[in-house]
Structure formats: C-alpha cells, structure tokens
C-alpha cells in the first residue's frame, strides 16, 4: 500500500488533469465539434472523435484520471464514515477493484469505437 501522502498527491494531480481534460471533453462536444454545436452530439460526429487517435488518447487519459480520482475520493469518504481495520481493508480493496472495472470497461468502449466497430 502506498503512503497516504502519495495517494493524496496523485489525487490532487488527477484533479487538475480532470479540470483540463474535462474542459477539453466538453469543448469537443460543443463548440469544437465539426459543424458546431447543433450537431455535436450526432452519432457520426461523436464517432469521428473516437476514431481520431489524439481525441481517443485524450479520452483514455480522462477516463484513467477519473477512475482514480473518483474512487480514491469514495475511499476517503468511506474511511471517514466508519473505522476499523477490517472496514479499511474492505474499502481499499473494493474501491481498487471498482476503479479497475470502470477503467477497463471504458477502455473497451474507446478501443471498440477507435477500431471502427459498433457495440
């Protein structure tokens, strides 16, 4: 297990990263979308983002940052809500697994779209 300060350092860095990549993500769905906002959420427009390697990489990075930040945040809240070594171990393991599942599932979606396939 990493030191708490290392976990928190990553938490702060991922928070900043989410701010930047989140802004980029929303911009890509609005005024940066090809053809402007009205058609930004149409299937072909969104699909074109996923097939672009740079946008796909940005989405993957955004997903990684979110998976860590969200589930480490939940871990912190749950550790403050209740105490005990059994509880701590259960919370740490559950949050780690949940983050991994969300990250892998999201990655699968991004890769599927990137390769041109539709689920």
């Amino acid at each position, binding site marked *: 297990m990493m030191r*708490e300060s290392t976990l928190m350092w990553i938490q702060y860095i991922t928070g900043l990263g989410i701010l930047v990549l989140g802004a980029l993500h929303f911009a890509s769905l609005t005024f940066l979308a090809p053809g402007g906002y009205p058609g930004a959420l149409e299937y072909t427009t969104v699909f074109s983002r996923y097939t672009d390697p740079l946008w796909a990489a940005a989405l993957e990075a955004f997903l990684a940052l979110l998976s860590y930040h969200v589930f480490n945040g939940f871990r*912190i809240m749950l550790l403050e809500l209740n*105490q005990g070594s059994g509880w701590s171990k259960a919370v740490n393991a559950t949050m780690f697994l949940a983050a991994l599942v969300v990250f892998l599932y999201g990655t699968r979606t991004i890769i599927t779209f990137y390769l041109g396939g539709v689920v």
Partner: protein
Amino acid sequence: MATSEQKPLEFKIPNLEGVEKPIKNVVFRVSRFDPDKDSKPYYKDYEVPVYRFTTVLDGLIYIKYNLDPTLAVRYSCRMGVCGSCAMVVNGRERLACKTNVLSLNSSIVTVRPLNNLPLIRDIVTDLRPFLEKHRKVMPYIIRDDIEAHQDREFLQSPAELDEYMMLTDCIKCGLCYSACPTTATDELFLGPQALAQAYRYTVDTRDAGAKQRFEVVDSPHGVWRCHFAGACSAACPKGVDPAFAIQQLKKLILYRRGAMEKRKPAPESDKVREGISVEEVVKNIPKEWPSPPAPK
C-alpha cells in the same frame, strides 16, 4: 515622603453599575447526566444573578454552591490558562472562565459538554482520547544526543523560533477537537491539536524527529483527513491557528519530506552557530548582576 504642600491624590470613582448589585437574572440551561441514574443527558434550568463581570464559570460555581451541589464542573485557574473549563456555551466552543455572560447577549445560557469526547458526568468529559492523540505525535524534541546534553540548551535564532511560536500557546483545552467536523465522524482522526503540535515540533530546528512523526501523521486517519473547515482556529481561545499549521504540515510532507527527515538538528550551546560561540556570549555576561538602584 508626603508633605503638607503635596496635593492629595485624586481618585476617580469608577462606574459601579452592575458591580455591587446584579444587573439581571439569567437562566443557565445546563446539561446534566449521572451515569448511575440517567440513560441520556437532559437539560436543567437554573436562575443565576449576573453582575457586570460574571463569567459563565462564575455562574456554574454559583449554581454548585447555592442551588445544586450535585453539579459536576471541571475548572482550575479561572483565568484562561489551564483550559479545564472548556465547554460548549450557546452552541459554540468556549472557555467558561473567559466568557462574560452579558457578552452572550442572551437571557438563556445553554451549557453542554465538549463534542467528540466520552461524557463522564454533567459537563465533564473524558479527555483521554484527545490526550492520547497528542502523545501519539511525540510532542517533544527528538534527537540522538539529547541525553548527553541535559545541562545545556540547543541554539535557535529568533527567526527560527517565529516559525512555531504561535503554536506554543496551545493549552490543550480540547475546544478545537470538539469543533472539528472530521473528528465528529472519524474517531481515529488525530485531530487539530495533535496535528498542529506535530507541525510545531517538526519545524523546530532543534528537533530531528521528522521521520518518526511523519510515520504517524502521514496515515489514513492523519493529516490528509483535514478538510480545512477552519472550525478549530475559530474555536481556539488562545489565538492558535491549527488549520494553518495542518496545511503547512501537508506542504512539508509533500515538498520537503526528504530534507526534513535528513535535517541535522541545531547544535548544542557550546557549538559555534551563526558566528557566535557560547564562550563569547558567556564572556560578556557580567560576573555579578547589577544591583537595583537604591531608593531615594
């Protein structure tokens, strides 16, 4: 010597309103709890005459001596130094001896025990969990050569002292611990007082215990659980700012951990420091302290 030519001393008669006679009666709504009889705490009202300088502690002592001797209240110095009379007065953490009843501007004074601590009786709480956390952060100078230099001080400049001076005013009353919202939910959280003292001793240049202290505070229920609500600093009756110290401690761990852990502590007083040796200081000390001037 007074002579007949000297003018008699003039005394200004102070305003005695509210000093000789009470200004008004105030209801003290006091939390009562006897572990042998009661299943949970309840409030009981007492009418207390209030003078201009009556404090909440004076009111409680009045109740104990005149109205209800079974009331348990902990106090000692009555002057805001010992921290024994820490309690929650009208919803805020305060020292009862430093709280003037009239300043509360209320006809009802509600008094209840500190939050986040086990209740012993009435408004007396068990401070042991709080003091155990204080002990946990090793609130003393740690260094290898401390035993060998019991008879001399370790040198420190005024600027180095300024780094932690404000935090030495802590009287361990527990008000910050009671006000802390994190302590309310996380009973293992070290709390503002202990964390502030961890910072106070870590930045002390005479100390070399950063490594041991970081092991304690850099933990799942340590310094990172502080959300910077600032309630601790607002509650402190001595002007200590634990919230600030905790943020500084976080900064120290994130940016200067390695340097702090390897830091050599300040030398003992016979080593040269900042170009001045103790021999030189001692040489300039007068052999005999000058006598006070003789009275004319």
